[in-house]
């Protein structure tokens, strides 16, 4: 039995509320797949449909090509790691890990052998007899992973399991999770609202907005070639300028914005004369030279200048107060730092600017 997960026209309704709306998604065998979205976007609902705690109102969930309808969570080849881990506090570490094995009525010897192996895997050898509540946050985390892996699932589902940890630990756990995934070859489906997490660990990321999936792709794709304004504004930091498309030349669109005519890579669906959005990421700006073409230069007053060490953040005067316009210049240690109130000319490479048809943006 394979371990790919396929969702076909899957919809989940709670009374009148549509939590997941006609989602089609294919998660490949053995990949580390992240579902990225803000809270309430339906990503946990998708996870619960795959694990079997929810049956979709419409559509199908297939695991390894097999329709999972009517198969309970205890019979599916999935294991879920809960946000709060849900370790059994009355049991020792060993008993927690062995829980799923006991259910499968493995012999005691075999159980202990597997538990040992898993304790090695999560780098907690010899901790088996400890009480769960005596462990640190990171250790609990690992026990939860071991407990889920013990039942040898084809698919491991993780519901923001790192959110309770502090930053340092979280970053280390990312690497460990990734390493464990590669060592075991199990398909990981990871739910998170933390972009850094999704980017750092995943083979592919699915970006979700309200109840539907906006884009699926590698972290690089998602970041560099967002499919629509939502993804462009949701993933990473992005500056957005609205305007009408004046003309399209060789895949580049010239957009009339409040900074004058600016040029960017034109994506499918952009038409001459249409309203569109031009996206330029903060890190893609540089201080413009005299000779830079004016279709890739913005002139503006700096509203606020912020020195961050490796970077200098400049915030430009903006009519739209709810969405800041940010420019991030690398600190080369030599150049002058533009101060608040001064005029600057900022250039960008049109290949790195993106023109998309008008559409909904993610909330800041």
């Amino acid at each position, binding site marked *: 039995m394979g371990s790919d997960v396929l969702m076909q026209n899957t919809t989940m309704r709670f009374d009148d509320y549509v939590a997941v709306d006609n989602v089609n998604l294919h998660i490949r065998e053995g990949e580390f797949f992240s579902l990225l979205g803000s809270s309430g976007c339906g990503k946990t609902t998708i996870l619960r449909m795959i*694990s*079997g*705690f929810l049956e979709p109102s419409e559509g199908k969930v297939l695991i390894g090509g097999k329709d999972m309808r009517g198969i*309970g*969570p*205890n*019979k599916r080849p*999935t*294991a*879920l790691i*809960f*946000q*709060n881990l*849900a*370790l*059994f506090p*009355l049991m020792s570490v060993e008993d927690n890990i062995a*829980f*799923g094995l006991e*259910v*499968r009525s493995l012999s005691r010897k075999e159980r202990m052998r597997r538990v040992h192996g898993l304790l090695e895997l999560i780098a907690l050898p010899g901790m088996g007899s400890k009480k769960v509540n005596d462990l640190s946050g990171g250790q609990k985390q690992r026990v939860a992973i071991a*407990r*889920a892996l*013990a*039942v040898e699932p084809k698919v491991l589902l993780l519901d923001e399991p790192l959110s309770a940890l502090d930053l340092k630990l979280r970053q280390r756990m990312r690497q460990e999770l990734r390493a464990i995934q590669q060592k075991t070859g199990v398909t990981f489906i990871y739910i998170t609202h933390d972009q850094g997490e999704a980017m750092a660990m995943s083979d592919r990321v699915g970006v979700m907005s309200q109840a539907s999936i906006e884009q699926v792709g590698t972290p690089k794709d998602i970041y560099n070639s967002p499919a629509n304004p939502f993804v462009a504004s949701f993933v990473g930091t992005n500056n957005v300028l609205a305007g009408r498309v004046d003309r399209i030349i060789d895949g580049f669109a010239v957009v009339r914005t409040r900074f004058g005519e600016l040029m960017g890579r034109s994506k499918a669906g952009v038409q001459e004369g249409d309203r569109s959005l031009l996206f330029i990421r903060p890190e893609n700006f540089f201080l413009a030279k005299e000779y830079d073409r004016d279709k890739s230069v913005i002139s503006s007053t700096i509203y606020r200048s912020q020195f961050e060490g490796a970077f200098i953040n400049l915030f430009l005067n903006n009519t739209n107060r709810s969405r800041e316009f940010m420019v991030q210049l690398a600190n080369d240690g030599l150049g002058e730092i533009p101060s608040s109130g001064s005029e600057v000319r900022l250039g960008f490479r049109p290949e790195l600017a993106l023109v998309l048809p008008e559409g909904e943006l993610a909330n800041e």
Partner: protein
Amino acid sequence: MNRYFQRYGKAMTAYIFLTTSLWLLGMVLMPQLLMVDYSFWYHDEGVQAIAMKEADRLEAQLDDIDAAITVAESKLDSAVENARPVIETHIAELEAKAGAMEPLFEPLDEAIRNPPRIYGFKNYIYLLTNTLHRSIFVKTMLFSLLVTFIAFALCYPVAYYLSHVAKGHRTGIIIMGLMVPYWVNEILRTFAWLMILSRNGLANSILSFLGLTDQPVDFLNSDSGVVIGMIYCYVLFMVFPIYNTLETLDHNQIEAARDLGASWIKIHRTIAIPYAKPGIAVGCIMTFMVAVGTYAVPSILGGTSTLWFTQIIYSWFFDGGNWNQGAAYAFALLVLCVTFVMFMMRFFKVSLEDIAR
């Protein structure tokens, strides 16, 4: 102490300690100690009997003297003049004799009214040697255990349903449904069962309608009526402690166990019940205590042939007028209850703190 001062302030702490100690001393400890004291002594009936005999003898003598006086007085009217002083002297002598006897009664009365106390285990030995009372004591204990067990079997699923399955306002409705009957007085509630369980009551109608019985079942003159009534009366003591602990069980743990492949039986056995142990212990203790100590239910639902131990205690106090014997029986019941509490704590491996929670 300092800790309490910091938390509640001086006045509040003093108030709490004063009221608590008053309550403990005046309303818990003193009456109980008095009861215990009562149970260990009895009136010396031998002394009482002797005093009564002696009093009777003196009484008879007094009667004789009174009769002699009456005879003498009747003679006085018809006697000749010179015989009168002799008779009058005789009467005076008799009256003096009667007067001298009067003080003799006082110690005897005292001994009869309040015979000397003898300390010993007689009251307890009586309980152990009286086969009827002993068997009722054992029966009360066994039936209370049965009531506790059935109540648990009924209440655990309800408590689990309320805490982990029912959603939103449905929980409220069910809890209300459980509570409302308890706003009715216990005696009335029990009387309702009297009607249900009587020979031509609802229960028998249903049974005969379903063709399960051809003769009406006599619930009321057997212990089954008492057991049914008690379970009904005391389920809440079981539901709510279990519900309260299960309520705090993270539902994710149940789902985690489910996800790891556990069957429902396994989930209850390894996750839910171990977690609910303190609640189960409290529920069992409370149900057992009220079942053992109930008076109303067995007196209403039990017939003449089904005595409950509390009824015997009651009759020692109020019908037999033997408080010492009653106190001993009551104390024996208390010991049983305390033993049960300790057993439950050991069995469920919970501490007093867990229970207090």
